[in-house]
Each structure stands twice: as structure tokens, then as C-alpha cells.
């Protein structure tokens, strides 16, 4: 019995945070976020070199062959540092989709390119959670048509496009018939787009285009755990910033953190954060080790972390007072990171409704 992170996992977190704080500080994050593509080749290569992009890729394909808990540890570090990196789509959701649905040839080719940092993959999965009129994809004679209004980790080389019945297409971003329109969101550290496909020939149909709803489910479960881990990292840093500010900011002749009105806000944030951290670790572990619980726990982790994350980033902003509301102070980057995490891959109420369905309550 050992519930917690291994020495290797702690080291992975430490070294990733150390690198990000030194080489991609917030000033650099702001520069990258201001670019059209929001992408930093140096950061991306470093993530490949550190084994972060290939964390879930089998060793045979040049990856580290590790589990989702290792990926969650990396995601916590990235969220903590509001890193502008398309980790979720490329290194997690695409890898799981390939692992679960790809042919041998597809797996070895695409996974090795992912681990090497040679390719970025976006995910057009929004319609799986919230169908709107005129959206979603369908396949006809091997061609893909349809629309997705919020593609995750856009500005990529290719886009994973699942159909509602569980077929997964991998479409090149510059494929004829595909229109990609960048979408501006609150969170400039990640990229989103709207895409329209008209009779597009995908680069690949994973596994020959057979319907694989189970594979899709695994991809979503993994994505949800990673979004929860990202929100965990971002919330943890927002709390630390609030505590540091409460210790140094003096009003009425005292550090504001000595007033119970302020210190209790900090305690409430910590009391929400720590059990939630345990939940993220468990959800990531369950994905690989406890298949019967994995989907339910992933839905709960996603919903819960985004609820408490939202509470923490807004409360941390309140502790900062007026300065936290300014653009010059960086805190809003964390506020917006969690704000985006909250809506991705099923907003908290949608994830809870999913949890209800899994238990036969709906």
C-alpha cells in the first residue's frame, strides 16, 4: 500500500517546474501567448527531450512507456506554470486514441512522431459533450464532413475528429476542404479553433475507420483526468500567490494575512485543494489500474477539480484585492487557465450528468 507519487514522479514534477520557471517565466508566457499560433518551438522541443510528450508512448515507439499518473504529474506542473503547450491534445488524447483504436502501423508512426516532438495534434471533441444544431461530424464513403465549434489545442499539424458513433479520423490541418478559423478565448495560453469539413479525405481513419466507442471513451477519460490535473496545478499556484501576498501586504498596520477574514479564505482554499489533489492522483491511477472505476472517477475528478479550482482562483483574486484585478499583475492568467479547464471536455454539470448515467441514475 503506497498511495502517493513515486520518487521518479516527484522528480519529474520538480524538474519540469524548475525548467519552466527558469526558461518560460510569466513574462515569456505572455510573449508566446501574444503570438498568432501561441506556440514556442524551443519549449516544445524541450518537452520532447524531457520525455514529457512521449510520457504515454510505449518505449518501442520512442516514448517513456509510463502511465496516466505520470502524465497527470506533468500536467500539474504545466498548469502550475500556465505553460503554453498543447500537451493535452497531442501527448494525451491523441496518444490514447492511437493506442486504443490505431492499427499497428498508425501507432508506431504517429506515436514516435509525437514523442519526438515532430507533430502537434488538436482534438475536435466538443460535440461529444454539447451538441448544437448543425455541428458534429459524419462520414460518407471514407470522407469526413461536418463542423466543430471549439477544437482544443488548435494550431496543430493535424486534428482528431471523432464521429458520434465512435469512428476517429485524423485530418491534416491543411487538407483540401477543411476550413480552420482561430477562436479567441479567455485563455491565451492555449489555442482553440472552429473547423468546417466538406468531404475531406482524412490522412488516417484510425483502425480502418471501424466504430470504436470504447476507444473514444478512454480518450475522454484520460483527457478529463489531465484537465483536472492542469486545474490542480493552476489552483495550487494561485493559492500560493494569495498566501504570499497576504503575508506581505500591510493594511491597518498589519499583514492582511493576520486578519481572520483573510486567513480563513486561505484555509478554505487549502482545505478544498488537498483532498482534491488526492482525488486526481487516484483518478489517474484508476485509469491504468482499476478499469471498472476509471470512467466514473475521471468524470468526478474533472467536475470536482474544476469546481474547487474556480473557487480557488476567484478567492485568490479577492485576497489580492484591487491589484489582482489588474492586467499588470499576472494572477489573471491562472484565473483564465482554470476558467478554460472548467468548460473543456464537459463542463462540471455535464461531467456530473455523465457520472449519473454511468450509475444508472439517468
Amino acid at each position: 500500500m503506497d498511495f502517493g507519487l513515486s520518487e521518479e514522479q516527484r522528480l519529474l514534477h520538480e524538474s519540469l517546474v524548475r525548467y519552466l520557471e527558469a526558461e518560460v517565466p510569466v513574462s515569456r508566457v505572455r510573449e508566446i501567448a501574444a503570438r498568432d499560433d501561441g506556440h514556442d518551438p524551443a519549449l516544445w522541443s524541450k518537452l520532447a527531450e524531457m520525455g514529457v510528450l512521449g510520457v504515454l508512448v510505449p518505449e518501442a515507439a520512442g516514448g517513456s512507456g509510463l502511465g496516466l499518473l505520470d502524465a497527470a504529474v506533468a500536467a500539474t506542473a504545466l498548469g502550475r506554470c500556465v505553460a503554453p503547450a498543447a500537451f493535452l491534445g497531442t501527448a494525451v488524447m491523441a496518444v490514447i486514441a492511437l493506442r486504443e483504436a490505431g492499427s499497428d502501423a498508425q501507432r508506431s508512426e504517429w506515436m514516435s512522431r509525437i514523442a519526438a516532438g515532430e507533430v502537434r495534434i488538436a482534438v475536435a471533441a466538443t460535440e461529444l459533450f454539447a451538441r448544437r444544431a448543425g455541428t458534429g461530424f459524419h462520414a460518407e464513403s471514407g470522407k469526413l464532413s461536418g463542423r466543430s465549434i471549439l477544437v482544443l489545442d488548435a494550431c496543430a499539424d493535424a486534428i482528431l475528429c471523432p464521429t458520434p458513433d465512435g469512428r476517429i479520423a485524423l485530418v491534416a490541418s491543411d487538407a483540401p476542404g477543411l476550413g480552420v478559423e482561430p477562436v479567441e478565448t479567455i485563455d491565451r495560453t492555449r489555442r482553440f479553433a472552429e473547423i468546417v469539413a466538406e468531404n475531406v479525405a482524412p490522412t488516417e481513419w484510425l483502425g480502418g475507420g471501424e466504430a470504436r466507442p470504447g476507444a473514444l471513451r478512454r480518450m475522454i477519460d484520460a483527457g478529463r483526468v489531465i484537465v483536472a490535473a492542469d486545474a490542480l496545478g493552476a489552483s495550487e499556484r494561485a493559492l500560493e500567490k494569495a498566501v504570499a501576498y497576504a503575508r506581505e501586504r500591510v493594511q491597518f498596520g498589519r499583514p492582511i494575512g493576520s486578519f481572520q477574514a483573510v486567513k480563513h479564505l486561505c484555509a478554505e482554499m487549502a482545505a478544498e485543494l488537498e483532498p482534491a489533489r488526492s482525488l486526481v492522483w487516484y483518478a489517474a491511477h484508476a485509469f491504468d489500474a482499476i478499469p471498472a472505476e476509471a470512467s466514473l472517477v475521471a468524470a468526478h475528478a474533472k467536475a470536482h477539480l474544476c469546481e474547487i479550482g474556480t473557487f480557488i482562483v476567484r478567492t485568490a483574486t479577492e485576497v489580492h484585492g484591487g491589484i489582482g484585478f489588474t492586467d499588470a499583475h499576472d494572477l489573471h492568467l491562472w484565473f483564465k487557465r482554470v476558467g478554460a479547464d472548467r468548460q473543456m471536455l464537459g463542463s462540471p454539470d455535464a461531467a456530473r450528468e455523465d457520472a449519473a448515467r454511468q450509475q444508472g441514475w439517468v
Partner: protein
Amino acid sequence: MDLSYSPRHEAFRAEVRDFLERHRAEALTALLGVDAGTARERALAWQRLLIEHGYAARTIPKEYGGHGAAPDLLERVILDEEFNRAGVSRGIGGQGPDMLVPTLLEHGNEEQKRSYIAPTIRGEIIWCQGYSEPGAGSDLAAVQTRAVEDGDDFVVNGQKIWTTTAHLAHMMFGLIRTEPEASKHAGLSYLLIPMQTPGIEVRPLGTMTGHSEFNEVFFTDVRVPKRNVVGRRGEGWKIANTTLKHERNLLASSALLEGSLLRLIDLLERTETESGRAIDRPGIRDRLLRLQARVLAMRCHSLRMLTCGIKGEWPGTAGLVTKLAGCEISHQIAGLAIDALAETGILYGEGAKAQAARTWQAHYMFSLGLIIGGGTAQIQKNIIAERGLGLPREPRA
């Protein structure tokens, strides 16, 4: 992350299961309070059997009547799990075995350990805790009950409140002011007081639940031998804090939360009105799912804290949040059950029709008592913020 058990622990689990199977006939199913009443003889016999097999008082040294096993947190978890699964009582617990005994082992002298530990773990001596006073609640170190030296005795005068089981107890462990000249925290001693001593009066304290879960205890010229001080005179504050640490972990166990949640789910799936089952109402269902996530998080958290305990690692802030988070969840579980019962949620009479509402209303009220007792939520927040996050203390008035 490895949630499996070693072969040694699996063997221990098998041994416990076998024991529970063989002793099904005499096993007690009800949760055992010290007020087991006519069942008391059976309870004491069950307790003796558990100690003999090392399933109670497992790590208490043999010379003090325990089983003398080396501390092993996983064995304790296995015992909890297997006894829970079988629906069998873990034996006699409460303030004596769970709070006083660890405190005596850490701070008591040899004579005190020999006199009290064995009969306490066997359930023969029932204890109550004399800490809080009308003027010393959150500010516990402000206790005014005083003991004045007179020969070989102290003479105690004053009043304690919130004293669970005082009406049944043979002994009290209390926090008493023995050094009036010393500063507030340095003037207290940890005193063991026989409850039969003349001058002690116990009055039941009615609470909002309609029951009397607590008492008030009045002391008028109560003579207590000086040798009944645990540790040194003036060390009472430090020693009492050892006991409180044990209490806070008792008040918010994740196994209790999981049990409450399962009963809540059962209620929501069964409670039907013309508009369907309670769980079919979206608002009710959403609250249930939020609580389910929180209970799951607390279960994971307790495994994480358990691991810290096994490895001897200090868990930091994470180790300070259990009471605050757990008691609140417990209160909310009961609140949701009452809402699911709709208008009939207010029933509080005797009889089968009112049973569900009565149980959940009592849970709802009593869990609010637990949010306040054992260090209020606000005191817990001070502890988290000051000891965990390193925020400055409030300047003293």
C-alpha cells in the same frame, strides 16, 4: 502508487476473515457505546476475545494488558475494513481507549500505566474528558476549574461542560488549573479524577436534538490525590494537545462518510413520490453527485494520509484539513437526505413512518455539533492557515 497489500497483509486479512466467520455467533453487530446497558456483559466478553486475538488494543504493550504487536497502520485498516464488511463491532472504543490510553502511553508514569491501561482497554473503566468549560471553549487554555494543594491531595472546584459519557464514567481526564501564579498555558495540569469522589455532580445537558448526548460536571471541594497528575504539574496544555490530535482524527473518518453516502443513495433510490424517485429530480441528483465526488476525494485523502503515516512523513497542510472538510460533508449529506424526503423531512416522532426523517434530522443536527465540537471550524481554519500555510497569528487582545 500501489494500492495492493503485501502477502503478509493478505495473510492477516485472511486470518481476520476466518476469525469473524468462526465467531459469528457471539459477534456483536451493534456499534458498541460504553452505555451498552444490559448488553454490557456481552460487550466486555467480546472485547476480551478481541484483545486475546489482537484485534483490539493490538499495539498496546503486553505488560499493560494489550496484544503487544508492533504498530502497523495497514493491519488497522484491514481490521476496520473486515469488521465493517462483516457488520461486526470493532469492540469498545471511545475516549478511554482511543484518547486517554495513547496519552498515558506517551506521558503517564509507570504506576498510572499499570493502574489504568488494562482495565480501560477491557472496557471496565469508562472515561470522560474534562476539557471545555462555559468560559473556555475555543480558548481552551482559559480553563478556570482550579485545584488547590492540601496535603497529599488537590482540592478541585469549578465546572466542566460538553462532557460526553460523564453520567456513566468511572474516571475523568481533565485539564485543571493548578498553578494560579503561572501564565495561562503554563498553569494547567492533566489530572485523573475518580467520578465517585464526593463533591462531583453530573447533570445531563439537553441539546437541540432532543437528547442529552453531553453533560455538565460540577466540582465542589473534590479531593484528588496529587499522584493523579499525568506528566509534570504545569504541563497539562501540552499533554491535552496530544489527546486532541487523536480526537480530531476520530471525528471525521472517511469510512463513516462512505457509510452515510451509501445510506443516502439508498434513500434517494427508494423514496418515491408521484413525480418519481428522489434521484430523478435533477436538483437532488446534482447535489448527490457533488457529495459523491467529495466523499471519494476524502477516501483518497485518507489513503494518502495513511501512506504518510506508514512512511513517517509529515503531510503538511494536507494533514490538517480532514476535520474541517469531513464534518461539513457529513452535515451536507444529512441535509440532502432531508430535502429528498420533502415535506415529510421534518417528521421527528417515534414510530416507523418517521424513522427515516428522524434519523437524518438527528444526523443533520448532531453533525452541526461536530462542526463546532473538537475545535470549531473557525479554529480549524486558524490552525490550517497558521500551522499549515504559515500565515501570521492574530495579535493577542
